[in-house]
């Protein structure tokens, strides 16, 4: 693709500067996108990738610099103006209305039809467009019925229906299983074949090399490599450009010395919020001093499994903690069995946003001395504990009276882990413990989890990051559509095979439905 006569530029951004209070998100950034190419934008969380793309897509205005689309200077005041110029962005968090159909979502905000909704006609248009780019989507389905991968297709269709010739995809594979990612790549290629261009934001080196023609690397708001052809690049090169140091996180793991079984789940089934079966007859064991990783694509019942074990969701089947049956016990009694829980939604479930650090840190121990004194609470004791944990776990915050909604994601997660680990749990259920955190914070969370394992706790780690599971777990259980479809010691785990199992491409017969 590095031909002498390079194709014309679809986007050219020159000298983009954008500052937010206290941080320079983009420092004189140059970026260009050729027609018909996939151009990856690589960088860690916080490197300034999304800021740059938000500027291109009309969500933000730069403090300085200029943007040209098809050679014409533009200054988009809104995403609508950007899309009118043929530039559409698919965000990491979809902006779809769950209660409306695929077609209604695609029509949303358009000038046409003028007044009356002609549903049949629009549905046919949507179906035709989907077929053209090899996307399988039912135009009449309601969004809440769709998988994450299908929802992403709706977002792409929405942009194509609006005539997007340039598509910006913000970390599109973060929510996809490997095979879904392959489908996405096929769609993107069919788009570039038509002369459309794609900006592909990612922090995963492998997929950047797989899909992109060129790559631009950013670090802390600065471009460290501009428009590098991927043909000759290696992962090591990109990693160095991205992080500025060796990336391979070295985790000190002690030898795996499993103790007795702490958590024993046997034939557990439950329904999700929509009343559909989520975990379907799941059985697994977690031993003391062991981390069991659950590998599954979002929405396969693993979140519900965590809720079932922690008492937040009713279930059928048997759950034993240290031999005691706890299925369908109250959350309080599960906590009393020394079960700690790092929930998936750390800001809405794991913490009370407007309450102070102190209040949040005593959430699991306010019933016991020294915080509790009869039916009263000992304020001084609570504050003492909070101060100590704040220091021990390096929770960065002005004071222990600060409401926790003001904490960054990494600090909030440290707070939750501090609280949970300090209950000296026999079992920890950790769900997506590093989602949305930056590299430093991820490393801190990983060290805390391994430290807890060393102390002999049993840990059930549910994560959509396969790399994270492989780095931490002693054993990997793969869950697909609510069933355990494979279980491997981490040492023998084969990424490709796990990926297949996670997406239902099982190579052995599934257990029959009882």
């Amino acid at each position, binding site marked *: 693709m590095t031909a002498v006569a390079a194709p014309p530029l679809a986007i050219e951004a020159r000298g983009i500067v954008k500052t937010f209070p206290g941080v320079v998100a983009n420092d004189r950034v140059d970026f260009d996108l050729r027609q018909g190419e996939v151009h990856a934008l690589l960088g860690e969380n916080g490197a300034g990738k999304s800021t740059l793309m938000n500027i291109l897509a009309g969500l933000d205005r730069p403090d300085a610099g200029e943007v040209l689309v098809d050679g014409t200077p533009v200054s988009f005041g*809104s*995403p609508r103006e950007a899309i009118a110029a043929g530039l559409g962005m698919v*965000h990491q968090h979809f*902006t779809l*209305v769950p209660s*409306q159909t695929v077609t209604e979502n695609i029509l949303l905000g358009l000038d046409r039809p003028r007044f009356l909704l002609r549903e049949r006609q629009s549905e046919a248009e949507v179906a035709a467009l989907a077929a053209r780019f090899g996307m399988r989507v039912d135009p009449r389905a309601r969004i809440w019925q769709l998988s994450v991968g299908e929802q992403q297709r709706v977002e792409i269709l929405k942009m194509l229906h609006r005539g997007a010739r340039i598509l910006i995809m913000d970390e599109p594979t973060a929510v996809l299983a490997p095979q879904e990612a392959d489908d996405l790549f096929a769609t993107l290629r069919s788009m570039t074949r038509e002369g459309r261009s794609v900006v592909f934001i990612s922090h995963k080196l492998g997929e950047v090399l797989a899909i992109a023609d060129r790559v631009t690397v950013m670090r802390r708001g600065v471009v460290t490599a501009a428009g590098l052809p991927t043909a000759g690049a290696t992962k090591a090169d990109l990693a160095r450009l991205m992080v500025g140091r060796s990336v391979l996180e070295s985790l000190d793991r002690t030898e795996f010395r499993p103790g007795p079984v702490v958590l024993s789940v046997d034939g557990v089934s439950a329904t999700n919020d*929509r009343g559909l079966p989520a975990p379907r007859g799941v059985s697994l064991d977690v031993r003391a001093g062991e981390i069991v990783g659950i590998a599954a694509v979002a929405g396969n019942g693993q979140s519900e499994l965590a809720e079932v074990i922690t008492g937040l969701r009713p279930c059928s089947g048997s759950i034993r903690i240290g031999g005691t049956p706890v299925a369908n016990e109250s959350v309080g009694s599960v906590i009393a069995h020394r079960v700690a829980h790092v929930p998936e939604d750390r800001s809405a479930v794991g913490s009370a946003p407007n309450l102070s650090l102190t209040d949040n840190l005593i959430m699991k121990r306010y019933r016991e001395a020294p915080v509790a004194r009869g039916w009263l609470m000992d304020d001084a004791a609570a504050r003492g504990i909070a101060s100590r944990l704040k220091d021990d776990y390096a929770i960065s915050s002005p004071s222990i009276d600060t409401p926790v909604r003001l904490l960054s994601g990494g600090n909030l997660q440290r707070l939750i882990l501090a609280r949970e680990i300090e209950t000296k749990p026999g079992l920890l259920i950790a769900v997506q413990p590093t989602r949305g955190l930056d590299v430093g914070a991820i490393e801190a969370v990983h060290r805390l989890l391994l430290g807890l394992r060393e102390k002999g706790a049993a840990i059930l780690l549910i994560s959509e990051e396969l790399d994270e599971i492989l780095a931490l777990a002693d054993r990997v259980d793969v869950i697909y559509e609510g069933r355990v479809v494979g279980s491997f010691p981490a040492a023998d785990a084969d990424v490709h095979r796990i990926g297949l199992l996670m997406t239902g491409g099982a190579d052995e017969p599934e257990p029959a439905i009882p």
Partner: protein
Amino acid sequence: MDLTLVLAAGVAAGTVLLFAAVGEIFAERAGVLNLGVEGMMLMGAVAGFSTSVSTGNPWLGLIVAMVVGGLVALLHAVVTIHLRADQVVSGLALTFLGTGLARVLGEGLTNRPAATLPHVTIPILAEIPLAGPILFRDQSVLVYLGFLLVPLAWFWIERTRPGLHLRAVGEHPAAADAQGIGVYRLRYAYVVLGGVLAGLAGAAITLAISPGWFGDQTVNGRGWIAVGLVIFARWNPIRAAIGAYLFGAIFRFIIDVQGVHSILGIENPFLAGRSSTFFLEMLPYLFVVVVVILGSRSATRQRIGAPAALGIPYVRGERGV
């Protein structure tokens, strides 16, 4: 007791609830809970009535009532949409404000006669057996306006482009915003529309259905009943209409039944004039509770519940609906 007359009067009484409930449906479908319906209705009632008293023109009164209702709702809109105040508290404040202000402005209007809106019989339709006399004979023009409003409101919400945008704003404002739909603009528009319809409902009382000004007894909780009806109606104008007419009939029935002297030879069967009529008068309010219980349960079961973003201020750039 002539059942036809009772039902016809019930339809008229239900029209008041209907306007208020449909207005609240619009506001809530846009994601803004406005509990101030009672206050807005009282303001509309007093504005319409006093205009009619002083000008002798009930039509002018109707328009003034709608404008006043809209203005009062605008206050709620500013406070909840721009200033992100709690919609529950602001709605309650609106009720207090509307009630107090209406009493202040209505001082001296009691027992004053005002010109009321005309009653009309629709020539051919009134001859339809059973339904004709109930729906189309000697009804206030506002009753017919109600007949028109319901299908229009439903059609607007479910079958048009502006309706699609309205639903999106109430379900997922961030998604609507991303598509260039002005979330604030639409929310303002529909909250004000809700106020206009509440003002209309108030004026429907004082200028058409039961003319006169009786202080805060004029509306007497009907605004709150309308709010309850919205839950019962699952945010659907047609179901709201059914509920409103049903309630109207119950209200009328309770009043009329007290005048019945004998049924099947039993003297004074409903103990009218005795203190037990208080139990009859409780019924509509108890019925709302029952209706809300049923509404809450079926809503959760069928996942056709409240608009997802109802009650949540929208701030661009904050994630989660």
